[in-house]
C-alpha cells in the first residue's frame, strides 16, 4: 500500500505519488491574536504546501474570532495532512475542508465567491465595448471619467478570470482581488460539517 515506485534511492525516501492533484477550499476559525496569520502561512511555506488563494477577516468581533479561507492544491493525502497540521496550531478552533464536506453531501462544490476591482483605460469604441461587457458579466461601475472605468465584480474565481481576460485587450490597467470567501451550502454551520474522507 506504500508501494509508490520512484527511481530516487535515499534514506530520505520521498515517494512520488501518482495521485491526481485536487483543489480544495478550507475554512479555518482562529483566535484573532497577533501572529495567527503568520502561523498559518508559515506552516504552508515551511512544509511546502500551496496557497492558491487566501482571505482573512475578523468575523465575530466580541469573540475575537477570525475566519481564514484558503484554497489549496495537493494530493488528497497532502490535503489531509494540511488539515491536521492546521488543527494542531494552538489558536485554531476549527478546520473544515469545505470541498470534501460538499462532496460528502453530494454537492459539486461549496459556495465560493470572490470580489475584484478592475481598472480599464480607453476611448471610443473600446470604452463602449468594456461597458457592454461589464453589463453581460453583471459588473458595476464604481468610478469613471471620460477615459476610464473601475468595475466591481463578484463571482466564482473562473468568472472573474474570464472577465479580466476579455478586458485585457480593451485597456486593462490593474486588478485588485479579495481572494475566495466560502461557505457550505445548506443550513449547517462549519462546526457540524462532515469532512472526513
Amino acid at each position, binding site marked *: 500500500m*506504500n508501494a*509508490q515506485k520512484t527511481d*530516487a534511492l*535515499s*534514506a530520505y525516501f520521498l515517494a512520488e505519488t501518482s495521485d491526481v492533484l485536487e483543489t480544495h477550499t478550507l475554512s479555518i476559525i482562529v483566535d484573532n491574536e497577533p501572529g495567527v496569520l503568520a*502561523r498559518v502561512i*508559515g506552516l504552508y511555506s515551511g512544509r511546502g504546501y500551496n496557497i492558491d488563494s487566501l482571505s482573512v477577516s475578523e468575523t465575530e468581533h466580541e469573540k475575537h474570532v477570525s475566519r481564514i479561507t484558503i484554497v489549496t492544491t495537493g494530493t488528497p*493525502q497532502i490535503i489531509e495532512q494540511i488539515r491536521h497540521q492546521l488543527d494542531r496550531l494552538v489558536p485554531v*478552533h476549527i478546520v473544515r475542508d469545505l470541498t470534501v464536506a460538499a462532496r460528502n453531501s453530494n454537492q459539486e462544490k461549496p459556495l465560493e465567491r470572490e470580489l475584484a476591482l478592475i481598472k480599464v483605460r480607453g476611448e471610443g469604441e473600446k470604452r463602449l465595448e468594456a461597458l457592454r461587457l461589464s453589463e453581460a458579466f453583471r459588473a458595476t461601475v464604481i468610478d469613471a471619467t471620460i477615459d476610464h472605468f473601475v468595475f466591481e465584480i463578484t463571482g466564482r474565481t473562473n468568472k472573474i478570470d474570464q472577465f479580466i481576460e476579455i478586458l485585457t485587450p480593451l485597456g486593462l490597467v490593474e486588478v485588485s482581488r479579495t481572494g475566495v470567501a466560502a461557505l457550505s451550502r445548506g443550513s449547517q454551520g462549519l462546526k457540524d460539517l462532515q469532512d472526513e474522507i
Partner: protein
Amino acid sequence: MQREMTGAEMVLQALKDNGVEHVFGYPGGAVLPIYDELIQQDAIQHILVRHEQGAGHAAEGYARSTGKAGIALVTSGPGATNMVTALTDAMLDSIPMVCITGQVPTNLVGSDAFQECDTVGITRPCTKHNWLVKDVDDLPRILHEAFYVAQSGRPGPVVVDIPKDVQFATGTYEGPQANPSNHKSYRPQLKGDMTAIRAAVELMSKAKRPVFYTGGGVINSGAAASQLLRELVDQTGFPITSTLMGLGAYPASGDQWLGMLGMHGTYEANMAMHDCDLMICIGARFDDRITGRLDAFSPNSTKIHVDIDPSSINKIVHVDLPIVGDVAHVLEDMVRIWRASSFRSQPELKGWQTQIAKWRARDCLSYRHSDDVIMPQYALQRLNAAIKGRKDVYISTEVGQHQMWAAQYLGFESPNHWLTSGGFGTMGYGLPAAIGAQVAHPDGLCINVAGDASILMNIQEMSTAVQHGLAPKTFILNNSYMGMVRQWQQLLHGNRLSHSYTESLPDFVKLAEAYGGKGIRVTKPGELDDAIQEMIETPGPVLFDCCVAQLTNCFPMIPSGKAHNEMLLPDEATDEAVANAIDTAGKSLV
C-alpha cells in the same frame, strides 16, 4: 489567589505555582528584573549555564529524565537565538519545555534596539506555541497556559517572550486555572475511539506474524504507559522493537525484546518489521531513519497506528487502522479488552518466534575483538557491565556513531533513563542534558556517552557542572574523527575524508582538570574496567578519554535507499561491500 505584583514577581510566582524547582538560565539586560527576583527567594534553584544552548538542552535532559517540563530563562536577542537549536530539538522529540525570554521594552519593539530580535517570529516554527506578552495583566494567564500547552497532548517546547517594561509593570496575579483542559481552542484527544481499539485487538488475536513497533510517545505518556505496554506484550507474547526515542519503555532484558529497529537497528528487529503480517505502531512516527526505502517498507502487513497527534497518522506511511489518543489511555483499553474477551494469540506465533530466533542467531552486533586496541563496542559493553543492575543510571549521548553504539550495546530497563537527541540529531546535546538529569537526580549516576567531536560543541558546560557541584561523567569514544561523517564519506564519497578528521584535539585529561573536574585516559582494553570503576566512584564531573580504534564503522546498517531486508551486517562489510553499498542514485541524498 489574587495579588498585586510586578511582572517579574509574577514569573517567579507562576513557576512556583506550576511546581517548578529548577531553572536553567543565563542573565542579560532584558531579563534583569526576573533575575533580581530570583536571587531574593529560595524555592526555585537557578543553574547558571555557560551558553544559552546549554540551558535549553539541560532543560530537555531534566524533562526527559523526570517527565516534567524543563525550564529555561534567557535574555533577548542572542540569548533567544542561541535557544533556537534546543527548542527545535525539543520540538522534534516532543519534549516539554517552557522557555522564558526577555525582550526589549514594548516601546522599542520593532526599532532594531540593542539585543532586539523578533523572538516569537524566529521561534514560531520551532515551538508548539509562543507568546509575546504586551500587557502585564495577560502575563499570569499566558504563563499558566504555557505550562499546560507544553505538557499536555503531544508535549513540546513553548516560548514566553516578556518585554522588560512588562517585567517592571504592576498587575494582578491569578493562580493556575483549576481545569486547564477547558482551553478554548486547544483540546488534545486522550481517549481513543473504542470501535477502533476493539478492531485493533481483534486484528491482534488473528495475527500470525505480529510485531510491536513503539516509540518516544510511550515514554511521553508517562510511567503507566510503559507498564501497560509490558502487560500487553506479556499477555499477547508478541515480539517488540522500538525506535531510538522509545528505548526503555520495554526492558532490554524482556523475553520479547528484539532490540532497536531502523538504520542502525538489529537484524532481527528489521527483518521482523519487513516480514510481519501485523504491525502495531504505538507512539512512533515512521521517521525516515526507521522506514528505510518506503516502497519496500513492511510490504505485506496490516498496520495499526496509535498516536496522540492526528497529523502523524498517514503522514509518511498509510495505515489501515489509525487510533488517535494518548498511549496510556489506549493501551489501558487494549489490555482490558484483550483480557475480557479472553483472546488468545494464534498458534502460528510459535513459528514466527522460531524464525525470529534464527534471525537473532545471526548475532548482528558481533564484532572482532582486539587485545591491543579498544573497540568502541567493547568499551560500551564494559560500561554496561559496570552499571548493570543499577536503577539510578541516566545515559545521555551526543550525536553520531557513539550514539548508535550506545543504543545498541547499553541495555535500558526502564523509561526516562535514556536521553538522546533523536529527531534533530544535535551534536552538543549530551553534556548539558546529563547536567539537567543530574540536577533532577542529584544522587543518580549520569553518564554522557560522547564522541570527541560532539563533546567539543558544548564542552563549556563542564564549568556549569563544577560550579553547581554536579557530577556528570562524560565517556568519550575518542577516534579523532567525526566517525559517522567519516563512515558516510566511506560509503558515499569514495572514502575521500573531507574535513572529518580533527587534527588538533585538546588533551581531554588536561581540559577536565582545567575546568576543575577529573580526567581519565585509557588506551588499552585491559585497563578499561578499573578506569570505568574509577570514573563511577569519582565524586565530581569526569571526562573519560577512551581512545578507541579509529576507523571502526557502525553496523548493522540499512544503507541509503535500501529496505529493511537489505541490511549491511558487520561480517559481510568488507571494504568492497562498503564501497558499493549505495548506488549512484542513493548518493544524491543523505
